[in-house]
Each structure stands twice: as structure tokens, then as C-alpha cells.
């Protein structure tokens, strides 16, 4: 057996029941089960008596509906379904990136300035298609929820980016693109001091920036420049806000749960992410290996295969059902072995990181009952 590395079991019940746990951030690469895990943890926390809110991002439609989130309204709604009477409370919301951005602008500038900012054509571009905006706004919303002070526990889902690291990096990238330095240079290169550019080069630079503005259009640059000047002078600037929310992630009471599929790429991503968290002294609760396939019957694959072959060799294959059962068990055992091997490799690289495997449900998870089962599997409490 390859899995002779000792796994530390991630005990999520301890985490969600601890009154000191205030924020749990569920991260991971695309499609691994972040939204599902966040919702399932929130449901479980509510049933364990905590007043819990889950901030979901782009949930699948059926899951959103079962949480009562039919529309994006950008504030938490209490989930009340017949027969659902948790000891605590379960609230849920879906992030509306555009609304959050609007609100941020409105909250931090006088009405006239706000109107001007919201009407800027450049604002349309960044609030819809700039990469990093979703991550930035998720953090902004989290900051607001924390500031409300109403919640025992806030569980945050993260955007469906390709890399888990984007969640930490994107806000910084966005803010450095928008802090105004580059745009200042593109719009008035002659005055762009502080770039370590010698006088003699400024002529060349001026020509280069002119080339840039010819290609992307002077209007766009002018719009962008006006927007950034206005924004950075009112809202404390993108950079400052990004720094503040990053601090939030480092504050006591915040924990990260990294979700990964038991596959090489997802686990590699998880490894990077775990290292990054420790570099940035952000507290990691552990790894959720989502959608594992442990066998349910104790029968070695080789034995099952040999028996299946024996059956199939028999005259007319008298028992196709039994042969099929043996074969599908052998498939599953092979998959299980591979998954255990991959998880053991992860643990060898990160011996201190607690892990819990969540066996896959045979079908999608899109209602409270499904979330409850995932919650039980997360807590290994079946």
C-alpha cells in the first residue's frame, strides 16, 4: 500500500463550533467544490447553533435556488424552508460584483463625484471585464460583513479562477493597475518622474506611449485617467483598500480551507497555495480532498478481476450481473488506490497539514439534504 504516510485528520466540527472562528475562506482551483464545501460547512455550522452567513460566488443555478437565492440582491437572506429548523441560523448571499463596486463608490464619495464615477465609460470596463475585479469585490464584501458585526461565523466561497492563488494576487494586481501611476505615464510621459527613467529617454518614451494610445485609442486612456484620479482621491485608493482587506485575512479568527480534487493538477495547485499561505502567515485549517472514491467492500481488485474473468469464461457467461459488479468494484478500487497515492504524496510534502477526504456523491449536490450529507462527510461524522 502506498498510503502508509500518516494523515492528520482535519476536524472541521472543532473549527466551526469554536466561537473564536469568525471567518472561513474556502479556496481551490476551478471546479473542485469550493461553493459546495462553503455551503455545506455553513449549513452544518447553523445546525450546530451558530448564526452563520455564507457568501457564495457564482453558485450553480439549482444550488442557488435551493438556498432561496433566485436573484442577485447582494445582501444576505435567511434560509427558511419547511422542516429546516437549525439550532442557529443560516443566511446566504450571492456576490453581485457590479453592485458591490457601485456601493463601494457611493459609500466613499460625495453624491456628485459618485455619479461622475459611475457614469464613466471606463468604469463599465473595469466593473465588468477587468480580471481581478471579482476577487477584489469578494474581499470588499467580506470586509462589509465583518464590519456589520452581526455574524457568529462568515463562510466565504472564492471566485472560479483557474488558480487558487488568484484569490490572493488578483486584488493586488488590480490595485497596482489602477493606482494611477501607469495611466499617468501613458497620458503625460514627460512628467512621469520616479520611474527611474533618465531624461534622455523621455523622448523615446513619449513616442512609445503615443504608439500605445494610438492603438488603444486616446479616448479610452482619457476616460481611464479621469476615473482613476477621481476614485483615488475619494475612496482612499484601491491600494489602501486592498491592503486593508488583506490584513483581514491575517486577523485571528480567520481560517483557510483549501479544497482540491484528488487529482495531480488540483493537488499541485493546493500545494502552491498551502506554501503561499504559510509564507504570508495566513492560518490554514487544512485540505479537503473532495470527491474521493473509497471502496465500500473489502475485496482486493485483483481477486475481483480474476473472479470476473472466470465468470466471463464460463459457458454463456451465466452471471453477467455478478461479473459486472466485480468489474465495477475493480475499477473503483484502482481509482481509490490512485487517489490515496496522490494524497499520500501531498501529505509527504506537507506533513503538518490536516486532510479530510469527502467521498463523492453519485449525483450533483443541489439541495439542503445533499449539503447536509456533504457536511457529514466533511466532518467524517457519518
Amino acid at each position, binding site marked *: 500500500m502506498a498510503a502508509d504516510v500518516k494523515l492528520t485528520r482535519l476536524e472541521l466540527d472543532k473549527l466551526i463550533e469554536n466561537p473564536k472562528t469568525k471567518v472561513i475562506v474556502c479556496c481551490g*482551483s*476551478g*471546479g473542485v467544490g469550493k461553493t459546495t464545501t462553503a455551503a455545506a460547512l455553513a449549513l452544518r455550522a447553523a445546525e450546530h447553533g451558530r448564526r452563520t452567513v455564507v457568501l457564495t460566488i457564482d453558485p*450553480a443555478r439549482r444550488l442557488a435556488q435551493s438556498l432561496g437565492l433566485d436573484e442577485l440582491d447582494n445582501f444576505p437572506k435567511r434560509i427558511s424552508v419547511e422542516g429546516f429548523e437549525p439550532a442557529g441560523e443560516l443566511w446566504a448571499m450571492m456576490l453581485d460584483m457590479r453592485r458591490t463596486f457601485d456601493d463601494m463608490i457611493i459609500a466613499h464619495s460625495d453624491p456628485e463625484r459618485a455619479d461622475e464615477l459611475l457614469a464613466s465609460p471606463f468604469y463599465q470596463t473595469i466593473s465588468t*471585464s*477587468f*480580471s481581478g475585479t471579482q476577487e477584489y469585490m469578494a474581499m470588499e464584501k467580506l470586509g462589509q460583513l465583518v464590519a456589520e458585526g452581526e455574524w457568529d461565523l462568515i463562510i466565504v466561497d472564492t471566485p472560479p479562477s*483557474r488558480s487558487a492563488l488568484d484569490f490572493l494576487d488578483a486584488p493586488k494586481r488590480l490595485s*497596482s*493597475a489602477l493606482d494611477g501611476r*501607469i*495611466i499617468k*505615464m*501613458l497620458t503625460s510621459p514627460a512628467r512621469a518622474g520616479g520611474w527611474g527613467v533618465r531624461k534622455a*529617454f523621455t523622448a*523615446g*518614451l513619449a*513616442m*512609445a*506611449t503615443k*504608439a*500605445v494610445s*494610438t*492603438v*488603444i*485609442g486616446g479616448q*479610452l*486612456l482619457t476616460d*481611464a485617467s479621469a476615473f482613476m484620479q477621481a476614485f483615488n482621491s475619494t475612496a482612499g485608493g484601491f491600494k489602501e483598500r486592498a491592503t486593508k482587506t488583506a490584513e483581514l485575512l491575517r486577523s485571528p479568527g480567520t481560517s483557510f480551507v483549501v479544497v482540491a480534487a484528488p*487529482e*495531480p493538477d488540483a493537488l499541485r495547485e493546493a500545494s502552491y497555495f498551502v506554501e503561499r499561505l504559510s509564507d504570508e502567515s495566513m492560518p490554514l485549517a487544512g485540505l479537503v480532498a473532495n470527491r474521493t472514491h473509497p*471502496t*465500500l*467492500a*473489502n*475485496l482486493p481488485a485483483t*481477486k475481483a478481476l480474476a*473472479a*470476473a474473468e*472466470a*465468470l466471463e469464461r*464460463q459457458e454463456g457467461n*451465466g*452471471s*453477467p*450481473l*455478478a*461479473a*459486472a*459488479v*466485480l*468489474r*465495477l*468494484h475493480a*475499477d*473503483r478500487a484502482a481509482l481509490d488506490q*490512485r487517489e490515496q497515492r496522490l494524497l499520500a504524496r501531498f501529505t509527504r510534502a506537507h506533513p503538518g497539514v490536516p486532510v479530510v477526504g469527502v467521498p463523492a456523491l*453519485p*449525483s*450533483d449536490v443541489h439541495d439542503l439534504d445533499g449539503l447536509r450529507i456533504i457536511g457529514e462527510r466533511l466532518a467524517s461524522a457519518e
Partner: protein
Amino acid sequence: MTKPRAGRYTPSAGWTQELRKARLHFVTGKGGTGKTTLAASLGLALASGGRRVLLVEVEGRQGMAQLFDTEPLPYGERHLVSAPDGGELRALHIDAEAALLEYFQMFYNLGFAGRTLRRMGAIEFATTLAPGLRDVLITGKIKECVTRTGSDGRFAYDHVVVDSPPTGRIVRFLDVTRALTDVTKSGPIKGQAQGVVKLLHSPETAVHVVTLLEEMPVRETLEAIEELSDAGLRPGAVMINRVRPPRLPARSITAAADGRVNSSRVRAGLEAAGLDLDAATLDGLVDETVEHAIRIAAERSAMEQLGEAKQPTIEVADLTEGVDVAALYEIADMLVEMGVR
């Protein structure tokens, strides 16, 4: 391990006559479904029989280098691997920033100033500010590769395969006409773009969509096919990836998915094979069977939904051991067997 091949509910299999006309292949799909893996395998399949194929990466992630276990790809074409029967697969990583700089050098002769701009992040900023510019530059470079001819007048590449942005962004990426509204009305970029539009909307181009037999990827696939057609682009094959063999006899699936597995029949069969198992193990096997049946039933309905798209389909088996370079050749073989050429 037996070679899984589940062709039973296939709507219309194979690489059609029409697909054979394509020389430019985009491979899109929901994130994580296998775009990079299948783009590489398709490249190998198309290169077999002595052809030259260029594999293009546009997302700046060096997924190809990782997949082929080589050095990160530069912005420049280079040999990647040899294909069966004397073919060659080459690779190009198109970096929008480098492409923009190249363009500047060509038309404005900026010299060092261009590099300085890049170092300061201004080029990245410009391409982010005008996402359409990025797309125009990338598709422009792709077109140049597709139409380039050698001194003998033959095309430099028989096929070009692009590991493309995911379904959510593919139409925007290929809709060069719209992207052009992001860049200024005049200048050489505009002129070059007209040719790109023509190529992308011609029978020489096919946009293949990779999917898994799961709800979300299937929905995104159907949406993408519709959006592509609406934009006048040509959806190519639906590439159903990671197909696992249904083990149960077809007639037992519905009942088993409902929890009805005749366990005394299973027990009798196991005994006939010389296995005398305790009750817990037998129950476990039955539970595994039910889970398997539920999954197969869900996959069947996913397959039926895909049938609505009326696109040619290609199935690629799930490789339990994961994907390495050898596996790419294995998948390429499967593709060739299904008529890819």
C-alpha cells in the same frame, strides 16, 4: 485493464467530411474538462502520417510545456515532438504583450522604449484596458501562422490547433469584429483584422468543444454551440472526454440506479466464481453498484442532452492512471481511429 470505449448512446460519431476541410482548430470547453490535453492529442493525431502541425497556446499558462514536460515555451515557434509516421508537432506560445511589442517595432520602430514600457507594466496595462486588443493581436498572429507558405508555395503548417479560452470567453475571443471596437478605427491593426474575420468564419476553421458527461459542462457546451452559431462561427466536434465504460448490462441500469439490485443473484454469481463473501462485503458491492448505476444514468441523460446539439461527437476514454506524454499518443490513436485526419 480493458480499453474502455462506450459508444452506445452516441448520437452521431466521428470526424465528418466537413471537419476534414478545417485547417484551423480551436479547442474550447468548460474549465478543467481537458482542453489542453485534447488540443495536444488532436495536434498529434493530425500530424500523424507525416504532416506538420502547430500547437498554439494563448492563455499564458505554459500548460503545454508542463504537459510535454519541456522548458517553458518562448514567443516563437519550435519543435515539440515527433508524431507517428514522420509527422511533426511544433508549438507556439502567443503572448499578447510580446505580440503588441512586435507590432510596435514593426510600425513605429520603438527600440528600447518599447521594452521600457513593458518593464513598467504599461503594455500589460494597455492590453488589459482594451481586452479586444489582446484578442485581435492573438488571432492576428494565428492567422499569420495558418496562411504562411514556404518557398515551395505549400503551407508552412498543414494544421494549426489552438488550446483556446474556456467556453465562457470563446465567442468574445473569436468575435474579432466586435473586438475591433476596442481599438482605434484606423491603422494597420484594422486592416489585418479583416483577413482574420474572413478566415475565422470560413470552412477552414472549426471550434471544437470539450465536455465531460456532467451537468454543468454539458450545459456550457450547448450554450457555447448556440452562441458560436449565432456569431456566424463554426462549431466543430463535441469532444466528450473521460468516458468510462458502463459495466452494468444496459437493462439493469434504471432499476439499479433506483436501488434495486438483485443481491441474491449477485451472491449466486459470486459463488459460481468461487467467491464466498460475508454479508458486509456483499452489501458494500451492492452499494457500489447502485452508485455506479446512478452515475451511468446521469451520464446517459447528459449524452442525450448533447445529442440535441446535432454536432459530430468524438469520445475519449478516461485514463485511470492520469495523463503523461505517452497518454497523449494513446489519445491521439483513439482520435485517429475515430476518423480524425
